[in-house]
């Protein structure tokens, strides 16, 4: 429930223009995001909360409109529709009740960028030191890692392949610029 006095507009860290080349590099729309922390035992017990699966393997992501990404034994990154932020927070609070958890909204902390199409992994590997081959980093795999000098969360969303890169707001221009620069290698490539 936002107040209506002098309602101001939201200004995101990146202009929402996708690159023309292959792979496509596209800043993603605003989202509701939460850092959810709880003990692994409670996660197993609950299974899911407010439509966000919790019983995922570490370093994996769920799909669907309410997605959870398990980044560690007791840490989940929740991503939902931007308009649902308040509702998500309320539903989660209600679901846990008095059971120990920590929910912190980070909708504005992160910026999402999609990297999609042929050579997407090569472009990411310009700065990401992980093995991104499908065998090692299949669809549904997700982890915090590095891209050049910035920390990112990297999620493989499908077999296009599409990757979602999440980084902190002030690192977004660097991450975006890094990806565009790396993609120049493939400006002349056949796809």
């Amino acid at each position, binding site marked *: 429930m936002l107040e209506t006095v002098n309602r101001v507009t939201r200004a995101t860290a990146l202009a929402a223009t996708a690159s023309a080349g292959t792979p496509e590099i596209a800043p993603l729309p605003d989202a509701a995001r939460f850092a959810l922390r709880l003990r692994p035992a409670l996660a197993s017990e609950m299974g899911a909360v407010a439509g966000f699966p919790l019983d995922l393997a570490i370093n994996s992501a769920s799909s669907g409109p309410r997605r959870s990404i398990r980044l*560690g034994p007791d840490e989940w990154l929740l991503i939902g529709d931007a308009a649902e932020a308040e509702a998500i927070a309320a539903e989660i609070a209600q679901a846990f009740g008095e059971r120990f958890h920590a929910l912190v909204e980070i909708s504005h902390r992160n910026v999402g960028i999609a990297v999609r199409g042929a050579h997407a992994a090569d472009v990411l590997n310009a700065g990401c030191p992980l093995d991104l081959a499908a065998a090692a980093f299949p669809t549904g795999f997700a982890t915090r890692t590095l891209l050049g000098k910035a920390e990112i969360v990297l999620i493989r969303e499908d077999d296009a392949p599409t990757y979602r890169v999440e980084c902190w707001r002030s690192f977004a221009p660097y991450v975006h610029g890094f990806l565009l620069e790396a993609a120049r290698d493939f400006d002349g490539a056949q796809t």
Partner: protein
Amino acid sequence: MLLIPCPYCGDRPEIEFRGGGEAHIARPSDPQTIDDQAWAEFLFYRTNPKGLMAERWNHAHGCQRWFNALRDTVSDRILESYKMGEKPIGGGRA
């Protein structure tokens, strides 16, 4: 660049980690009751072995968990890693 086995995430490049020095140096449970020498040993003295060493690592750009690893300081071979509160099995990784 080392390849460090995070007990939660598996093998990851060293650049994702932050080192934390020698492991298994327990913080005294009641520091106020121990004398200056004992406190100084806790704070400052490390074994710095040539050979096998248990050391703390934090997967800072990964799961962000602290854990311990057994590393040979001569060859840099990492024999095993284990979660905080656990003991090394000592047999090395398969």
